[in-house]
């Protein structure tokens, strides 16, 4: 008699309708899903008021890193002048474009390495402490593309100035894990916060 009761209870749980529902919902969600992950790059525009204020107060302390994207390649300069004066005098950019299969290729990996070697690695220790920084505009870069430069080249350039190259892992103190520079907006806060390993993540775009 007791056995009969157990059997009856087992028969009550009919999973088939739930299974049917799940089997319909999953294909529907899979079909309408986007399998790419959309992220963001934070940028700013140069503002006259802010630039003037910096000039008046602490011009001598600013690095003033600027990357110009032209049809010929990348021109890199700081407040002190061109990063490659000899090439500039010959009318050549610091890093020239190459051509492959009729397509222009911008040397973004070389740009990343150049900025890292020349401007990040020698100065990062002096700029580690935010209260006693050597440069007032540390971590800031201005990117100035020419009008006809494709948008994807601008994004490539921003990636190159923001992220550290792979060799930084053995050369920069305190680097562990992945070399990723991430902007995060904590819930309830209005400002973005930087985390991870960043080179020059605060980019101003345009003239």
């Amino acid at each position, binding site marked *: 008699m007791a056995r009969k009761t157990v059997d009856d209870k087992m028969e009550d749980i009919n*999973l088939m309708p*739930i*299974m049917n529902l*799940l*089997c319909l*919902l*999953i294909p529907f*969600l*899979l079909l309408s*899903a*986007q399998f*790419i*992950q*959309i*992220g*963001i*790059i*934070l*940028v*700013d*525009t140069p*503002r006259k008021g802010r630039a003037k204020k910096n000039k008046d107060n602490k011009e001598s302390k600013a690095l003033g890193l600027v990357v110009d*994207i032209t049809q010929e390649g990348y021109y890199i300069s700081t407040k002190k002048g061109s990063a490659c004066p000899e090439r500039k005098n010959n009318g050549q950019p610091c890093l020239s474009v190459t051509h492959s299969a009729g397509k222009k290729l911008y040397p973004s990996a070389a740009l990343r390495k150049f900025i890292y070697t020349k401007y990040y690695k020698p100065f990062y220790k002096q700029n580690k402490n935010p209260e006693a920084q050597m440069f007032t505009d540390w971590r800031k870069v201005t990117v100035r*593309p*020419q*009008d*006809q*430069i*494709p*948008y*994807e080249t*601008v*994004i*490539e350039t*921003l*990636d190159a100035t*923001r*992220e550290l190259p792979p060799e930084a892992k053995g050369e920069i103190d305190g680097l562990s894990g992945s070399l*990723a*520079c*991430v*902007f*995060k*907006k904590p819930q309830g806060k*209005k400002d973005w916060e930087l985390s*991870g390993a960043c080179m020059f993540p605060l980019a101003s*775009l*345009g003239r």
Partner: protein
Amino acid sequence: MSQDMSPEEAKIAKMLAEKKAERRGKEAEESAFNITSLMDALTIILIFLLKSYGSDPMQVPQKKNELMVPKSDSMSSMSECVDIQISRTSIVVKGKKVVTITNNTISSQDAPDGFTIKNLKERLDELRNKEIEAKQDKSAGKFQGEAFIAADQKIPWKLVDQVLKTCVKARYVRFSFAIVKTRGG
């Protein structure tokens, strides 16, 4: 033992034995088709899909030869703000088309001074005023002036620059560019 039973008793015992055997067979058949593990797997997939849907505050429709967002190493994720889509044929603000683009340029009628896009500025002013009013009602702090720009990878920088300058004139001063993540996170 069956020899001690009367024919009636033997008949009942045979019937009971048959019934028992039948039930055992049925149970064996049922246990061969166990859907509990399948249910578990399907439930996990469903939860994963629903969760991945909920994590993106905004969707960027990718259309070939129209709006393909560039790839990037960036691992930052977006937050909700005014979204502007610049495709090869139009500029769309919060789902409403405001300007037509022909041959990667904006006509001089739409941008009389060469920089400020008239219709875009009007639409942004309208959205800004709405946002300010909504924030005042909810006392949710100041207007942030953040804009999210999803532009096609092949369009020239001049177009993006015109949009940025118009945004600055409409007091949208912080920008996030949409990209397709090339690494997880």
